[in-house]
C-alpha cells in the first residue's frame, strides 16, 4: 500500500455563488516533488489553503501526512511559503525564523543552529540581523523559503516560490528542491514558470475550474516523445507505413512528425525507411515541452492570465 503525503477526496470550496474548487481528488506519495498546474483562477491557491487549514472546505475531506486536515501534530511537520509572502517587517530575518521555529516546536540550541544553517543556505547570513523592511523582494522571498524549511518539514508547500527572484535566486530554489528530494521531503509546487516545474518535478497534474483534468509523470523517459523525420518521399503509402511505428502523424513544411512510445523505436523506423528505398535526410526525437502540454490540456480558448 502506497504511503501518501497528501490525499484528497472530493474537496470542494464555494465562496457564496462562486465555485473556487469543484471536486479535487489528489494522491501525492511521500518523497515526491509534485507540480500543481493550472491557469489563473483554476483554484490552485484555494486548494493549498484548504489543505493548510486556512480555508474550510465546503465538502470533501483530505489527509496530510496521514492525519486529517487541521491536525496540529501534522502541521508541525509542514512548511509553507505563501504566494505573496508577507510578514511583520519590523522583525529581522533571524527573529522571523526564530518565531516560526518556536511556533513549530523547535527551540533552544537546535533552533539557533538551524537558523544559522538556513540563513547561510539562502545567502542571507550577512543581513540576518537587518529588519525585513530593508530587504529587496528577492531577499524577502528567500527569507520566506528559509521560514518554510525552519522545522525540517516532511512536506513543503511552495506557492510560486520563484516569484520575484532573479535567475540566481531561481537556481537556488531549484537546488533547494533537489536537496529536499534527496532528504525524502515531499514538495508540493505551484508555479506558473513551467520550465522550473519541468526541471524539478517528478509528476504534475493540471487543474481546470477546480478539478483535475490531467496528470502525468515527468520522470518516465517515453512520456512525450515525438519523432521528426525529413525524408525523400512523402506519399500516402509512406505515411500509412509509418503508422506501424507511431500515431498522430502530421506533415508540416516537408517534415513528418509522429508520436512514438519511446526513442527505442527510432532504429526500426530507420530500417523500414531504408528497406523501402526512401532517402533519410534527417531524423530525431523531441519531447513535448510542459508548456505545449499545458496549452493542449487547457485548450486554446483559455483567457491569458
Amino acid at each position, binding site marked *: 500500500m502506497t504511503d501518501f503525503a497528501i490525499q484528497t477526496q472530493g474537496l470542494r470550496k464555494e*465562496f457564496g455563488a462562486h465555485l473556487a474548487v469543484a471536486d479535487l481528488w489528489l494522491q501525492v506519495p511521500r518523497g515526491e516533488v509534485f507540480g500543481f498546474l493550472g491557469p489563473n483562477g483554476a483554484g490552485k491557491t484555494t486548494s493549498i*489553503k484548504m489543505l*493548510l*487549514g*486556512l*480555508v*474550510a472546505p465546503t465538502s470533501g475531506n483530505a489527509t496530510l501526512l496521514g492525519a486529517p486536515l487541521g491536525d*496540529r*501534530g501534522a*502541521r*508541525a511537520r*509542514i512548511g*509553507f511559503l*505563501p504566494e*505573496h*509572502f*508577507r*510578514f*511583520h517587517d*519590523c*522583525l529581522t530575518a533571524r*527573529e522571523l525564523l526564530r*518565531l*516560526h521555529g*518556536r*511556533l*513549530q*516546536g523547535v*527551540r533552544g540550541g537546535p533552533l539557533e543552529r538551524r537558523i544559522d544553517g538556513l540563513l547561510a543556505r539562502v545567502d542571507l547570513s550577512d543581513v540576518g540581523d537587518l*529588519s525585513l523592511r530593508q530587504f529587496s523582494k528577492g531577499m524577502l522571498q528567500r527569507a*520566506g523559503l528559509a*521560514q518554510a524549511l525552519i522545522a525540517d518539514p516532511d512536506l513543503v508547500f511552495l506557492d510560486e516560490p520563484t516569484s520575484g527572484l532573479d535567475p540566481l535566486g531561481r537556481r537556488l530554489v531549484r537546488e533547494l528542491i533537489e536537496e529536499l528530494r534527496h532528504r525524502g521531503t515531499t514538495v508540493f509546487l505551484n508555479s506558473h514558470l513551467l520550465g522550473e516545474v519541468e526541471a524539478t518535478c517528478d509528476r504534475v497534474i493540471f487543474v481546470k475550474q477546480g478539478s483535475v483534468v490531467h496528470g502525468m509523470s515527468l520522470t518516465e523517459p517515453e512520456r512525450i516523445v515525438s519523432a521528426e523525420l525529413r525524408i525523400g518521399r512523402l506519399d500516402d503509402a509512406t505515411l500509412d507505413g509509418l503508422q506501424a511505428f507511431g500515431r498522430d502523424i502530421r506533415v508540416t513544411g516537408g517534415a513528418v512528425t509522429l508520436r512514438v512510445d519511446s526513442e527505442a523505436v527510432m532504429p526500426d523506423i530507420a530500417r523500414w525507411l531504408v528497406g523501402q528505398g526512401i532517402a533519410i535526410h534527417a531524423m530525431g526525437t523531441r519531447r513535448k515541452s510542459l508548456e505545449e502540454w499545458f496549452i493542449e490540456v487547457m485548450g486554446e480558448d483559455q483567457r491569458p492570465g
Partner: protein
Amino acid sequence: MFTLLTIMQLAFLEMRRRRIVQAALACGAACLAVFAVAIYLLHHFHHPARTQSLLQIRIFLQLQTLAGLYAVNLLTVTVAVMLPVDAISGEIASGVMQTLASKPVRRAEIVLGKWLVHWLMIAAYTAIMVVGIVLEMRLITGFSQAHVLTAVGLMTLQGTVLLSVVLAGGARLTTVANGMIAFGFYSVAVVGGWIEQIGAMMGDSGARYIGTAISLLSPTDALWRRALYLLEPPMMSQVSMSPLSRVSVPSVAMIWWAVAFAVGALALSAIWFEKRAL
C-alpha cells in the same frame, strides 16, 4: 502555553518596533505636561478670593482633577480602539496571517495572545495616566483624590470592553470599518448615558430605561459614569455640582455585566476568527 507566549512576544515586538507604544506614551506625556502647566498657572496666579471658603476651594480643585481624568478617559478610549484596530484585520489583509495560521497554532491562541498584550498595554497606560493626573494635583495643589485605584480599574474595564469588541470586529471586518464601528459603539454608549441622565433629572422613567438598555448594549460609558460617581465627593454628585456629575449612577451589576460583555466579545472574536477564510 509556550505558543501563547510566543504570540504575545510577537505582538509586543510589533507594537514596540512600529512605535505604537512610543506614540501613545508621547501623547500621554503631552497631556500630562499641558495639565501640569495649566494647574500650576491656575494655582499660583489665580489666588482665590478671601471670601471663598475652604469648601469652595476644594470643589474647585476637585473639578480640575475630574477635568484631567475626563481627558485621560478620552485618551484611554482612543488607545483601546486604535491600538488593536488592525491587529487581526490588518494582518489578514496583508497576508501575514496566512503564514502564522498555517503553523500548529490554534487560532484562538492568536486572538488570546494579541488580546493579552493589548490589555496589558491599555491597563498600564490607564494606570500611568490616572496616577499621573492625581500626582500632579497632589504635588502642585496638595489636593488628594480618593478612590483612585477603583477608578483605574473601572476605566481599564472600559478599555477592556472596547478591546474585545475591536478584536471581534477585526475578525470579520476591514480595519477602517472596524474602527468606525468601534467608535460608533462608544458614541452610542455616551448618548445612552445622556438619555439616562436627562431621564433621571426630569423624572422620566421611560427615557431612563432606554438609557439603561443602551448601556447594556454598550457598557463603556456606564463604567466611566460609575468611576465619576466614586471620584466625586458624595455631596457634589448629590447636588449635580459639576458638569460631569451624574444623577443616575450605574449599579455594581453593570460592572459585572461589562466583565461578561468583554469575555463574551473575546470568545466571539475567537469563534469568528476560527471560521474566517484567510
